[in-house]
């Protein structure tokens, strides 16, 4: 006998995401979400409960997802100029993370991935490791094809940028589509936060740029529907050949996505009401706080974030750590390539209390700095 076999499970090649700091910490209010972590709307609750009580969600559903939900996704994409057949070009997944994993694992296996947002490389690295792929950042500002693109097999376009909340200008996307076509690259377009753009800003899917349609798998979410984070439901869409490959992995992974969650998404997607007004009110509350503390800030293009420059308080990481000790989590800019900043997400049912804790923390840190501590 050599020894207990399970303890020999090797983790060297493994692809663990770092454990979220807030996970398992009771009482911490999380203002670091990437999406609208609010309460589910009453209409969505009622519709979903109705489905459950009718036992519509008891059994496996169509492997690619509820037909009506696939059709609703296709219809939304059509409004943005992207045409997909809901029958075999849309798959409903078990959340954004599963969507990203399935896409990278199947379309970028053992490939070289060039990602448009260099700092996001760390976020995708575990997924790339799972696919035995490599990730490099890409300079999108160049007029000529970036060297990283020439080396790549897969182009990963992240737009809008989920951490910093910025969207690319159409000219940049047009350039990237041209590179993809000329280099014959498969494109994974992570557009999972497209639904969070502020009112007045519109999103154009990467797949609609010339030359991109037949080579792009679009990853999307129901992030614009408040409260659906915990329900774990998202989608992907694109040419049937690309979608089919990813669908096979999805089936191998979970057979189909949870039926209750799909019914919730279906109820939410049909409801055109948006809660951006509430979020903008909260954004303004955070801005007022930062103004009072004389901390520079930026309101990104997505609806629920404020990015603050906290270099005067020691930088993003120490501020995020101190916030966590005081019971509120914000995202350090180290996660998105800006170590002097923090990102505050203005969502969640506990936002008012979270804001109070943030205010207390920043004031204490400001006072400490001022007194030379």
């Amino acid at each position: 006998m050599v020894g207990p076999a399970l303890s020999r499970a090797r983790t060297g090649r493994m692809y663990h995401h770092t454990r979220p700091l807030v996970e398992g910490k009771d009482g911490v209010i999380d203002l670091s979400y990437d999406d609208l972590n609010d309460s589910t709307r009453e209409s969505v609750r009622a519709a979903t409960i109705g489905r459950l009580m009718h036992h519509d969600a008891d059994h496996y559903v169509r492997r690619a997802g509820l037909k009506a939900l696939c059709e609703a996704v296709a219809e939304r994409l059509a409004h943005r100029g992207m045409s997909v057949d809901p029958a075999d070009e849309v798959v409903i997944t078990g959340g954004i993370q599963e969507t990203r994993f399935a896409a990278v694992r199947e379309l970028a296996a053992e490939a070289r991935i060039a990602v448009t947002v260099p700092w996001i490389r760390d976020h995708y690295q575990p997924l790339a490791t799972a696919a035995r792929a490599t990730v490099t950042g890409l300079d999108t500002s160049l007029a000529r094809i970036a060297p990283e693109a020439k080396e790549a097999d897969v182009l990963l376009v992240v737009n809008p940028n989920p951490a910093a909340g910025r969207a690319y200008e159409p000219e940049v996307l047009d350039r990237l589509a041209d590179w993809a076509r000329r280099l014959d690259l498969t494109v994974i377009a992570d557009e999972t936060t497209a639904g969070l753009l502020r009112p007045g800003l519109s999103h154009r899917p990467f797949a609609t740029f010339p030359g991109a349609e037949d080579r792009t798998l679009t990853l999307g979410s129901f992030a614009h529907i408040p409260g659906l984070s915990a329900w774990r439901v998202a989608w992907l869409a694109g040419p049937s050949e690309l979608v089919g490959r990813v669908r096979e992995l999805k089936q191998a992974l979970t057979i189909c996505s949870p039926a209750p969650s799909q019914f919730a998404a279906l109820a939410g997607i049909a409801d055109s009401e948006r809660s951006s007004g509430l979020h903008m009110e909260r954004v303004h509350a955070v801005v007022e706080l930062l103004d009072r503390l004389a901390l520079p800030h930026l309101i990104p293009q997505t609806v629920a974030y404020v990015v603050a420059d906290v270099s005067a308080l020691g930088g993003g990481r120490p501020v995020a750590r101190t916030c966590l000790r005081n019971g509120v989590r914000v995202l350090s800019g180290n996660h998105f390539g800006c170590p002097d900043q923090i990102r505050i997400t203005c969502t969640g049912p506990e936002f008012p209390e979270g804001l109070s804790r943030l205010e207390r923390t920043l004031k204490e840190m400001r006072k400490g700095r001022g007194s030379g501590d």
Partner: protein
Amino acid sequence: MTKTASETPRQIVSPGELRAVAADGTKLRYRLMEMGSEIDDVIALGRGDPDLKTPGHIVEAACRAIEDGRADLPAPAAGLKDLRDAVAHKLRTDNGIPVDGDGVLITSGSQEGLFLLIQGLIEPGDEIIVPDPRYTSYDQAIERAGGMMRLVPTHRQQDFDLFPEVVEEAITPRTRAVLLVTPNNPTAGIVSPANLKKIAELAIEHDLVLISDEIYERYVYPPGKHLSVGSLPGLFERTITLGGVSKTYAMTGWRVGYVASTPEFTDHLTGLKRTISGGTAAVSQYAALEALSGPQQCVDDFYATYSRRREVMMRGLRDLGFDFGEPLGAFYVFTDVSSVGLSALAFSYLLLKEAHVLIFPGTAFGERWSDWMRISLLQPVDVIEEGLDRIRGVLERHT
């Protein structure tokens, strides 16, 4: 009635659309289900999705979680603590497995648990001993991890029990684990406690991991007895137990399963789950919590229902002249249809097209099972009887 291969009247049917996917058991099952779904009066005796409803108290618990906002709070990657504890409690009290909540990972169906544990356990080139026939999703999980399957046969004459001798013969220096599926899909056989204990001894002797898929554990019929290998002395540390609520409580749509093992390995798998999918849907976890901790009369009722159907199906298949191993568990009968004179693939196609009866051929569960079919018990008794009548009609017309 038996015909040789050269006499097989293959011109009767033209299952070309199936042959295109026949080499892949999983694709074959999906294609057949798609074809079946296009037929209005189809009698589906193929898929493993219980036809019974999720018990009302479970659905109501999920609705309460929606109403009071608990379903809006994302669950940790490892699962809700209350649910992990409830699974551990069930495994300790019902199965004798010495596991605590920190040794339980909640997954989005047991299939995700299987995928995760294979990814977390093996290195490329490692071998896993897999009983054949088999649920081919194992193939996909092992293949994607770069592992190799070493198939070991089970036989109708032994009611598809798994014997330690064939397991021992298959062990090589690259063997990492033995997969135990008891009760088994598709054979409905169980690994008898005596054989299980000997296989456990082999695992200790060769320092192997035992992967014990017990998703059908609550449906075992006399004289079968279910034994969880993780309950045997000294085995918990090398056993990964796989289970879920889908089959026991008719909850396949909710997608909740679990993996139970040591806290260290569970922590390792939790890291993988965080990367692959994040926490399982909270609403589904609250339903599963009620399933495990609420009234269990529903399971007894389901058991009685499946037992009645099993008797009807076995009697009907015997009347049709089919031979099968004693189905000691799950809700299937794996039957030899070589007497028909068609391959099982051709016969399943014929049954679907002519009689509107959907049954999976054995090749959906392994290449060499071309004379076998898996028939599920997941229809009411009168529908099963109607299905048997339709099969009889096809046999009378073509043999």
